[in-house]
């Protein structure tokens, strides 16, 4: 989970501390806290080893995460944002969540095998999206697809959470805060733009 954006965040943290120190509101312990935080951030680097999902399940989640939020012209995708690591880590801490994923992956493989004689990973790209086009929508709910729809809902929201809490996702939506400033300024241009559009 380390990349240049998070190094930026660390810089911001230090800058905030510098700012606060100048303003006279910060003590040595607070500064120490920032150092500790930065150290903890560094410790999160390194290759990830799956903790709960087996190799096949992990590979399936990688395919699925990449389909849910792929790389596009704006940003990289869920894989680069650590979505599968996030899901595997939480599953390793919670048997209830783990069974949602192992059960859901197994359900998808069975559904693919029934249709195409192949599991989700081995199937073609078209075959994969054909299944997702069914289970990604509540309107397709049926005794046959119900478990898949429930599972996909879990996978989608957790992949989305992992992506948008990563530095890649933060940049994708364009959140520009968590910086601190000596003054809060509002863009008059933005105000004029929205007021005009609102008709108020």
């Amino acid at each position, binding site marked *: *989970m380390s990349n240049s954006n*998070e190094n930026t965040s660390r810089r*911001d*943290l230090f800058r*905030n501390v510098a*700012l*606060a120190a100048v*303003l*006279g*509101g*910060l003590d040595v*312990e*607070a500064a120490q*806290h920032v150092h500790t*935080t930065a150290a*903890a951030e560094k410790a999160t680097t390194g290759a990830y080893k799956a903790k709960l999902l087996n190799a096949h399940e992990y590979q399936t989640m990688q395919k699925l995460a990449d*389909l*849910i*939020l*792929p790389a*596009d012209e*704006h940003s990289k995708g869920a894989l680069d944002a650590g979505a599968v690591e*996030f899901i595997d880590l*939480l599953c390793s801490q*919670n048997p209830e*969540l783990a069974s949602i994923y192992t059960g859901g992956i197994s359900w998808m493989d069975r559904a693919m095998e029934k249709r195409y004689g192949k599991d989700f990973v081995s199937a073609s790209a078209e075959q994969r999206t054909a299944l997702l086009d069914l289970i*990604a*929508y509540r309107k397709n709910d049926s005794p046959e697809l119900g478990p898949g729809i429930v599972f996909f809902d879990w996978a*989608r*929201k*957790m992949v*989305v*959470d*992992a992506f*948008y*809490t990563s530095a890649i996702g*933060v940049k*994708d*939506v*364009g*959140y*520009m*805060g*968590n910086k*601190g*400033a*000596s003054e*809060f*300024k*509002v*863009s008059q241009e*933005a*105000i004029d*733009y*929205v*007021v005009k*559009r*609102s*008709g*108020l």
Partner: protein
Amino acid sequence: MQINRGGPVYDVVVIGSGAGGGTTVKVLTDLGVSVALIEAGPMLNPAKDFKEHMWPSQLKERGAGAGGATYFGKGPAFGPFLAPNGYWDIEGEPYTVAPGNEFRWFRSRILGGRTNHYGRISLRFADYDFAPYSRDGLGTDWPVTYDEISPYYDKAEAFIGVTGTKEGIRSAPDGIFQTPPPPRVHEVLIKKSCDKLKIPCIPTRLAIITKPLNGRAACHYCGQCGRGCVTASNYSSSQVQIFPAMKSGKLTIFPNSMARELITNGSGKVTAVSYIDKDTRTERQIKCRTVVLAASACESARLLLNSKGPGYSNGLANSSGVVGRYLTDSTGYGLSGYVPALEGRGRYDDDGFGGMHMYIPWWEWDKKNKTFPRGYHVEMGGGYSMPNVGSFHGTCRSHEGYGKSLKDAIRNGYGNTVGLSGRGEMIPNENTFCEIDPTVVDKFGIPVLRFHFKWTDYEFKQVRHMHENFTNIIEGMGGRVLGLRNPERESSGISVGGTIIHEIGTVRMGNDPKTSALNKYCQAHDVKNVFVADAGPFVSNPDKNPTLTICAMAWRTSEYLAEELRKGNV
């Protein structure tokens, strides 16, 4: 159990370190009074305990909690980033709710209590709020008037620092204000929509400083007040009142100490406070000349009800039988809307205060023939906030699907939703109170509270009024209400009792000892050296968040107490 009865006699023992306890400690130590402060939780260390400026990605679980607790409605209250503040459930310290009732009790166990995280909304009660019965025949008048409390609002505001502007609105009295920050873009739209509806929408009144004050730095606009502020630029009793008071040499703090009972030794006065030292599960006592209860309205009531002796088998300071009665919480109702006018406005740092920059005070205070008594104020949210676990679940639900279209929908919809939250006045009713559960004790052996809580038609009708007006405000700016456009039932969407965390009224004040527990200085009618400095004394629960009034009342009570000590009257 070993009981340690040694130690010095303190002028005042204060129980609880939130807004009431913190203010009491500050005022009394400034006046040279020796104070022992008992706190049921640990000391606070902002440098270590606050997660200000951290990104979700800096937490192993990104803020979802171990095992994805937040997906299952578990984990720390209000998420993992918030200042250590308290809990909806405390292991080994239960409370019970009577069958057929719903109530949730948020309790804090740390120095500073709920002020470490609270919304910092700082609203004066209006003049008419102190005389509700005289106005509409419901509830009871306070034994004090606005004019008596106003100087203490001045002191509290000047000391803790509150933003605002002079508006001359009767429902929202002006005070001693620091300059508020300008409205955010979506707040400008909300104000314009309100203007059209003739609903006032005015600059925010929050306990956040925009200019340095008493050695505290001005706000640095990171939007994370709820996480606790390392520069103490917002009010918390821990950082703003108690830490400075520790330097006075007049304050002794007993952390991890759970008050159990007030001891009178048959003297008619409290001579000591019995507490459990949580680290050793040993009972100890602190000797005192006077005691100030500031443990939160319900904990203070519990402590009085659990203090029984010959002549007061009903609980201490409770010859009237009102202790635990007249419990209320604020009503809560929220509605959000998607506002297309906000689409494509470009990105900017929208953090600002950790809270709204504008708010809506009650506007129908002089309207006759309303369908419900009293009123509410409106808080607002929106803008470009830090993406967190759960931030885009709404888009996942509404857009569904996957792939590039989902990514586009999230990017294009980000920051275009606004939320309005009503916080209104509940009328005390006979079905809403707390009492000692006759069969359950906590892990320290202290009998626990049992809650009874019912909303009435007054509150349901008020919430319907909120729904209609919030819909008008959202639609007036071209927005689309998310959720039900026309809820079928009047009660749809009203908060569960207790969940707005404005519980008050359980040790109410009044001039008549037969119908109140405390006199107009929050001094017990029955026991002259017992005072209450939290929201327990409040006679009504006006449509203003209680913290500022807790500070003002505690300030006044503390000055009175110091004077009575000096005169030898207590």
